[in-house]
C-alpha cells in the first residue's frame, strides 16, 4: 500500500456517465486481481473523501480505472485532464482465490453486473493467460451499461451479454444464462464462480452457486472512508463461523473486497 501521485494519461468518456482513466505512477506497484485503490483529484477540497475504484488494469508504472459517476466525488474526477494529478492509495484489499481453477482445472465463470466488471477484468486476463477455461457473463441495464465489454471480448474467452431492456445481447438478467450453463455444464470438476455487481445480483449468484454446489467468490462494495482499515466503516455482516471471532462484521477494505459467497449474510 502506497499513497502516490498519479498523472493522468487519459480520462475519457465511454458512455453516458461512464469514464475510463489511466494514471501514470511515479513508481512500480504490484497489483493483484481484485484489488482496488482510493482516489481523489489532487487539491480537491470538496467532497473530502476519496472514492474506491477497482483496478481495471495495471502495468508496471500505470493503472487504469473504469468508473460510473453517481455523485460529486467521481464527477470531480471527470474534470481532471491529461497531465493533471490524482492522489491514489493502492493497492488495497485482498485478491481472488484461483487455485481451484489454475491448479485443479475447474472452469471459471465470471459474472459481471454493470460497473462491477472492472473488478473482474484483471482476473479474467490472468486466468486466460494461464490457459484456464474462462467464461464471462456480462449483464447491464442497457447497452450503455456494459463498460469495457470490448476489452473482455478481446481476451478471447466466450462472453455472454445480457441487458435488462434487450438493447444488447439477451434480454433479462445475467443470472439466466449463468443458470442455464451451470446446469448444462455440471461435470465432475465443476465450476468456480467469481462475481461483482449490484448486491441483489451477487446475492442471486451466490444462491445459484450454493444450489449447484459450485464455489463462489463475490467482490463487494461498501461505503468507505479510508480504504485501509482505520475507520471501520465498510463492514459487511458475515455468517457465524465464517471468520475467526469476535466479529460478525468484517471490513470490506481489508478482509475483502473478495469474500466466499457463503460467508456473507445476504
Amino acid at each position, binding site marked *: 500500500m502506497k499513497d502516490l501521485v498519479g498523472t493522468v494519461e487519459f480520462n475519457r468518456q465511454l458512455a453516458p456517465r461512464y469514464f475510463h482513466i489511466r494514471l501514470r505512477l511515479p513508481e512500480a506497484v504490484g497489483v493483484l486481481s481484485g484489488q482496488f485503490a482510493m482516489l481523489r483529484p489532487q487539491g480537491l477540497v470538496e467532497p473530502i*473523501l*476519496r472514492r474506491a475504484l477497482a483496478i481495471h488494469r495495471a502495468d508496471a508504472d500505470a493503472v487504469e480505472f473504469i468508473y460510473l459517476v453517481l455523485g460529486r466525488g467521481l464527477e470531480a474526477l471527470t474534470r481532471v485532464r491529461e497531465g493533471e494529478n490524482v492522489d491514489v492509495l493502492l493497492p488495497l484489499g485482498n485478491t481472488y482465490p484461483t487455485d481451484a481453477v489454475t491448479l485443479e482445472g475447474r472452469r471459471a465463470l465470471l459474472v459481471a453486473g454493470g460497473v462491477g466488471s472492472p473488478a473482474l477484468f484483471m482476473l479474467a486476463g490472468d486466468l486466460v493467460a494461464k490457459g484456464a477455461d474462462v467464461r464471462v457473463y456480462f449483464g447491464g441495464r442497457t447497452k450503455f451499461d456494459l463498460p469495457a465489454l470490448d476489452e473482455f471480448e478481446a481476451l478471447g474467452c466466450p462472453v455472454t451479454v445480457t441487458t435488462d431492456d434487450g438493447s444488447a445481447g439477451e434480454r433479462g438478467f445475467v443470472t439466466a444464462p449463468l443458470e442455464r450453463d451451470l446446469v448444462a455444464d455440471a461435470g465432475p470438476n465443476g465450476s468456480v464462480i467469481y462475481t461483482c455487481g449490484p448486491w441483489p445480483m451477487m446475492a442471486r449468484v451466490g444462491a445459484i452457486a450454493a444450489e449447484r454446489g459450485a464455489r463462489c467468490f463475490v467482490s463487494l462494495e461498501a461505503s468507505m*472512508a479510508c480504504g485501509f482499515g*482505520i*475507520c471501520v466503516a465498510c*463492514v459487511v455482516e458475515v455468517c457465524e463461523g465464517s471468520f475467526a471471532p469476535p*466479529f460478525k462484521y468484517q471490513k470490506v477494505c481489508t478482509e475483502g473486497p473478495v469474500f466466499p459467497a457463503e460467508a456473507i449474510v445476504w
Partner: protein
Amino acid sequence: MVSATESSRDPRLAVEVAGIRFHNPILTASGCCGYGLEFEPLFDLSRIGGICTKGLSAKPLQGNPPPRIQETPAGMLNAIGLQNIGARAFMEQKLPRLRDYDVRVLTNVFGYTVDDYVEAIHMLNDGDGIDGYELNISCPNVKEGGLIIGNDPRAAAEVTEAVKRVAKRPVIVKLSPNISDVAGMARALESAGADALSLINTLVGVSIDIHTRRPRIANVTGGLSGPAIRPVAVRMVWQAAGAVKIPLVGIGGIATAEDAVEFLIAGATAVQIGTASFYDPLATVKAVDGLSAYLDKTGVASVSELTGSIDLSPPPRGH
C-alpha cells in the same frame, strides 16, 4: 522499518501533556487510526507524537450495522458503534508491536457505566507500553436511561473520579461538543482530577436520503467530524483554555500544520488528527513537517510558545 532516531527529530516540537512527553504535538485521533499499526506500511510511527487508539472496552464489541458513514459538506457522519477487539486482545495482539516504535500510546476507553470504565482501566493498567488513557465520555449512560454522560458535568466528573482512583497512568478526558457550557464542564473535570482534557468529539448529526426517506446511517444519528466542525472545535478549545489550568489536546477538523497551529494558538498543547487521515493517510506526518516549516518561517522558537498565544487586541482598520 527503521525508526526515526532522536537526531532526525525537531526538538522545537516537543511538548508535554499530563506528564507525558511527546516528540511533537501531532497525534492520531481515536477511531481514525485503528490501533496505529494500520499506518505501518505508510510511514514510520515514531515520526508522530502519539497514537490514540480506537475506543477500547473491557469486552469486544460488534458495533452498529452498516451503513455506518455518510459524507456531508466538508465533513462526514459516522456511527461505527465502537466496534473493537476489547482491551485484552489489544494488549495481546497490538501493543507488543506498537512497542517497536518510539511513539506515545494513549488508549481511548469508554463504557456505559462507571464500572465499565473502571474494569477497562484495570485491564489496561497491566499493558506494557501504554502511556496514558483518554476517556471517551460521549456514550449514552445506560443507568440514566440513555442520557449522554459527557453532556452532564456531574456524571462526567463521577466517571473521571472513579477512573482516577484506579488509573496507574495519566488520564485525559475527552469532551463532547454537544453541550452549552464548555467552561463549566472543563472546570468540573479539572476538579474531578483529570490530568488533561481533549476536545472535541463529534457533533451529533442526521442525514436523510430523500428518495428512500431513510436515515443514511443505520443508527439514525451519527457523529459529525472533519473540516466542517473546525470552527466549533477551535471555539471550545479557546473557551476551555480560559477556564482551566490543565493542558488541552485540540481535536476537530485538523488536516494540516496550519490547522494545528490554529488550535495551539487557541490554547491547545497538542492536537489529534482524525478524519483527515481517511482522505490523506499521510496527514499526520505532513503536519509534523509542516510545523517545523512554520517555526522556520515565523522564527518562533518552539511550538509550546504558540499555546494560548491568541492576540485579542483590536485589529487594525481596513480589514
